């Protein structure tokens, strides 16, 4: 059975490494992008990304703007996009939800919880 592909988007290599190690161990194929523009382009150029884990504060394009750009294309209406960020302010969660994100995780993430969330949304 083909592995589901997850895109992780974060300007921190430390976080991308942690995400990749966690999700690889859980049986996912993981690709990475270093900021919102690279993340959006990776999604636009691919047809097999099952879910996206995305930071908020990044250079060039932040995570919410990335979600808005991706969701502007009808073919990505059902793509699950989850924010992973240090931010916890309610107003930001609502902005992400309005943009089309399906979830929000405050760093640092619990590996078991991350896997559970990804398994749920990438099903």
């Amino acid at each position, binding site marked *: 059975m083909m592995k589901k592909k997850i895109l992780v988007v974060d300007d*921190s290599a430390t976080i991308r490494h942690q995400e990749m*190690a966690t999700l*690889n161990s859980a049986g996912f194929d993981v690709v990475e992008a270093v900021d919102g523009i690279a993340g959006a382009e990776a999604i636009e150029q691919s047809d097999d990304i099952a879910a996206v884990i995305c930071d908020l504060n990044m250079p060039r394009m932040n995570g919410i703007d990335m979600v808005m750009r991706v969701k502007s294309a009808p073919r990505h209406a059902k793509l699950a996009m989850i924010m992973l960020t240090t931010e916890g*302010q309610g107003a930001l969660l609502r902005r992400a939800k309005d943009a089309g994100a399906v979830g929000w*995780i405050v*760093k*640092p993430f619990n590996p078991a*919880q991350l896997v559970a969330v990804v398994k749920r949304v990438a099903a």
Partner: protein
Amino acid sequence: MNNRDIIDAIVTGCARELFALHDTELTAAEEVHEPHDYVTVIGFYGESMRGALGLGIDRRIVTRILEQYADTNHFPVGAEDFVGETANQLVGRVKNRLLAYGVEFGIALPMVLRGIEVHLAKSTSEVWPYRFSSTEGAITVWFDARIEPGVVLEHSEGPTDTIACEGEVTMF
């Protein structure tokens, strides 16, 4: 408690929480050996408060923490990136605590300082250093805050906007 007391408690508490996740216990220290091997600064900007949080950390601490991420399947995590991300998470925790006091600010990207040695001055009226020792070396956090005149930090007793906590998962 005055503004300084509140921020002292928040910053030191957040630093201890964050490094405890890496099995590093921090003990308050009067002085630490400087300069640190790694120094990073991350800015923040808001209407009532703006400035920067700095983090200095000794190499042995970083090396030990990164060993747990050693993985033959991926590139090794760089020490500088780790230090920058740690400062990011630290200021994020501080921000989330300050939300309960009515303070909001945006967070910039961390900048790891290279090629310079940083010696922190003794506490000034605006730059507040917090020095810690651990079994593997020292850490210094400093909070360089410009608080608008007249701003008094008061913990909100009434309804406030929700604040998601570290590690919390919210599905919409």
